[in-house]
Structure formats: C-alpha cells, structure tokens
C-alpha cells in the first residue's frame, strides 16, 4: 500500500475524470495495462477497493494518472476528492500489455473509459519500442470522448466512432478495425483492446479470423487484487479459471473465454 497525494482530479469529459497522484513507486515501475487498487473511503462501506488502469506515468515528476468514469458509489466518492488529499492505493498490480516485435503494426481498439490504459500503451509503444500505429476509439457520444490528441501526439492515427453518431462514424470501433483490416489485408499487426465485454469479444473474433494476435484487458469484480481471494475468475481456454488480477488483466485473446 502507498499513501499517494492527489495532485489533480478533474473532469475531462462527461462523467470522466483524470486523477493524478504523486506515487513514485508506481511511476518507476508501472507497465501499460497494469492497474492500481484504490481505496475510496476509510469506512466499512463500500467495502472493496476499486481497480483502475494506469493511464500514464511521469517518471520525472513521480506521478501516475488514472482516468475513471463515475458509475456508482465508489467512483462518485472518488470524484469528490480534492488535490492535497491522500489516497490509499495498492499497485502497480497485474500483468500489462506485452510489447510487439519490431516491425509490427500496433492496432489499438478502445471503448469508453477502456481507452485509459491504451493511452499509456501508445506512449510506451512509441517512446520505447519506436512503433506507431492506429487507434480505433469508440464512445457513446461526442461529449464522452477523450484522449484522441494523446494518441496523435505519439504518432498514432486516430479513427473515431460514437454510438449516437455525434462524432466520427456512427457505430463501434470494432467496425473501424474490421474496415481497416479488410483494406490492408497483408499487414503484420497486433491488436490491443480494452473496453466493454462485447467489444473484446468482437475484437477476439476479428483478430482470430485475420490470424492476428490480440491482447485484451479484462474486467472482473475484484477483492484482494493480488490473487489471494480467487474472486476475479475468468474461464481459461484450457479449463479452470484464470484470475484477472494476477494472470491479467491483460490476456492473449486465445487464453480466455470472454463470455
């Protein structure tokens, strides 16, 4: 556990917040796809911590960011915290995204707040692996979009889809991915995805049908966050269950049964 000071906690889109923490251990060691397990309140309710993907770290400034959407009690308490307050967190936890071989084209597919860990991933791909690729992002509506400029700043070309068509194409980012892969048949690519279950399922299908490796960041309700309670199970392709917190949250698409 660390006690991390809140540096910033600001709305970046409709009901989406960016929280920046002073957390040198996280800043030093985090990999894209790993998460922080955050205590939203000191009291007995809500009881559990909340997991959030790391959306960025700034090593020089000792900071780590998460981007979260207010959906319930925990995130709503979080959104009321002010800079200067201290947050109790565990992490970085879990296994993040593996970097591709040189020469591979990274294709990023993000849905909603699932875009968060992909921002950090794009940074690493570009700065460490020297790879730039394409990002296909989907949101419900224009007012909930965020992060496009970040991908662009790392040299990614961005295509947008919104469910209501208020921005980009009307529809889902998986359609953008499909269109792209149809037009660029022979590309040596790798897919990275995070978002709602339906999105991951679809990405898995598409990647499999094109014979492209895909890495998916999964979500499950978490207890301990470190593999002790066996609460965050996801069916393994080989039978039995993997634990999202310990074996993931990022899995190779073939490892797990998403539904």
């Amino acid at each position, binding site marked *: 556990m660390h006690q991390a000071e809140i540096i910033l906690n600001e709305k970046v889109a409709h009901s989406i917040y960016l929280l920046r923490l002073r957390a040198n251990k996280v800043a030093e060691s985090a990999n894209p796809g790993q998460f922080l397990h955050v205590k939203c309140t000191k009291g007995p309710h809500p009881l559990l911590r909340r997991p959030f993907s790391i959306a960025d770290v700034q090593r020089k400034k000792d900071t780590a960011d998460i981007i979260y959407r207010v959906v319930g009690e925990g995130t709503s308490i979080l959104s009321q915290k002010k800079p200067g307050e201290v947050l109790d967190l565990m992490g970085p936890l879990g296994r993040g995204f593996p970097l591709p071989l040189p020469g591979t084209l990274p294709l990023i597919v993000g849905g909603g707040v699932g875009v968060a860990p992909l921002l950090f991933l794009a940074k690493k791909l570009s700065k460490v692996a020297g790879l730039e690729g394409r990002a296909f992002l989907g949101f419900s509506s224009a007012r909930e979009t965020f992060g496009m400029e970040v991908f662009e700043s790392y040299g990614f070309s961005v295509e947008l889809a919104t469910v209501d068509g208020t921005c980009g194409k009307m529809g889902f980012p998986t359609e953008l991915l499909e269109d792209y892969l149809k037009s660029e048949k022979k590309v040596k690519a790798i897919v990275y995805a995070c978002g709602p279950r339906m999105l991951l399922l679809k990405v898995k299908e598409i990647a499999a049908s094109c014979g492209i490796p895909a890495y998916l960041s999964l979500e499950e309700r978490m*207890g301990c966050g470190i593999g002790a309670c066996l609460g965050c199970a996801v069916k393994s392709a080989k039978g039995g269950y993997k634990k999202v917190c310990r074996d993931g949250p990022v899995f190779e698409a073939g490892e797990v049964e998403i539904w």
Partner: protein
Amino acid sequence: MVDLSVKIAGICLKNPVMVASGTFGFAREYSRMFDVNELGAVVTKGITLLPKEGNPPPRLFETPAGLLNSVGLENPGVEGFIRDEWPYLKNLQVPVIVNIAGETVEEYRRIAQRLSPLEGISALEVNISCPNVEKGGMAFSRHPDSAYEVVRAVKEQSPFPVIAKLSPNVSDIREIALAVEEAGADAVSLINTMLGMAVDVEKKRPVFKRVFAGLSGPAVKPIALRMVYEVYEAVKIPIIGMGGIFGWRDAVEFILAGASAVAVGSAIFSDPAAPLKIIRGLEDYATRNLKTRISDLVGLAHRNDAEF
C-alpha cells in the same frame, strides 16, 4: 508491556489476530506486502481431497458494508497443496492452520489422514459451513448430528488439534457448538458466511450462477458477535471469533463477548494491513484499560457485575 499471547486448542499464538480462511490465499500473496510472521496465525484457503475448479464468474458482489462471494472452494486439492503450498508455509515463523472441506464424511477423513504426516501443521480447521458448493459444505453444520460426525471423523485421524468452523445459518448455533465439542473439537471458529443473494435488476436474474452466495464483512458483525456471545455461554472449548472484523474496536468486541482469538477476513481486501493495525490497536486498548494480558479480556462482557 501487554502480553498479547493466547493459547487456543493447544496452540500458542503470540497474538490473537489470525486471518480468515479463503481471504489470505496461502499467505504467499500477502507476504510481498508485509511480514506475515507478525500475525497470530495463518489460516489457509479451504483444501478438498481433489482439486476444485470453483464456480463460474461472477464470484464476488458487493452489498452494503458487505461482500457476497461464490468462489466455490477453488483449490489445488490436498496433493497439490502438499506439493505446491506446504513447502512455503512450513517455513513460516507462525502457526499455520489448514482449513479443510469435503463432500462426505469419508472425504474429510481422508484429507485429515493425508495431512497427518505434515509436521508443522498447527491445527486443522474443519469447514463444515461453506455455502458455495453443491454437496456437503454448509449442510453438515446445519444439524448437530452431521456436525458431530464430521468432526469425530477428522479428530480420529488427525494428530493435530481440530477446530470446527460453524455456519451461522442455523436456528440455534449453541446446539451445533455443543455437538462438535462433544465430538472432540478443540475449538470452534465462528462464523462462516451468511447465506445471501443478489439480483441483477437489468438482467432480471440472480447475480450468481448458483443463486446463493456467502455474505461476509462488517454487515454481518452484529450477528457474528451475538453467536460468539451465545456459544461462549454454552461450551467450554475456546472460540475463534470472526465475521466483519474491520478495526481494533471490532476485535475487542469479539474478545469481550468471549472469543479467545479473532480472524480478519474481508477487511483484508479493504486494507491488507488491517490485521497488523488490529494487533497494535488491541495492545493500546489493553494498556489504556490497565490489562497486562489480553487473555484477561476474554468474555468480560458476560460478567453481571459489570458497571451497568
């Protein structure tokens, strides 16, 4: 200086704060976060004869100040345990209590038998109260006769002290506690999870595939505390109290109600350091209350001469 040590079921604990089965894995996971040797004792995840996959997701659901779980006793089985977990556990500088579960009395007997050569096990905790499995589990703890039978069978096989872990989902927990005492249990653990459920209002179906799940956490504390208090007046064997312990104050409540030791479960998810904080809190409390031994506090709430 407060003497925090307690003796329970023949085991000496340097302090009365253990971790509850199933919330601490096989200790290794948390050993990276703090020194597990500071605990009073470590209790393992429940072990069955054969490996168990556990239940399909979701396995956890939060409720007001509580947690429903339907893990379903996922574990490597007794052989897997001996092969993969015991080598680490046996080197801990702290008593290790192995929690066991079975579908039949015969299974309990065989697990106990298989564990009996393992020098270094401090006690077996016999889980006859798991609500998350198809067969056996909680059923054993709902009737005095079957509770008696299981504990008797384990006791016959086991060179180690035997702790019976009871289900709170009964009309009269004293009846069950008396039965396991008679069967030779060296202590009782109270309580396992309460049977509960949740409904997904969007999908209009139970959240859990097995419908029912086990409720733990602060929500159940008043019920657990009541059961400890009741059982303290019914049996002579010591009680390990658990169910919703979140801070030192809760631990003190359990001890005053009659628990010789306590176990922290779900609260660890909220704060892995909770057991250590509770140890310090108990020490401070004893000091403030001029008690030199924590064991002097056990059951104090039962004195009728208390200044009412």
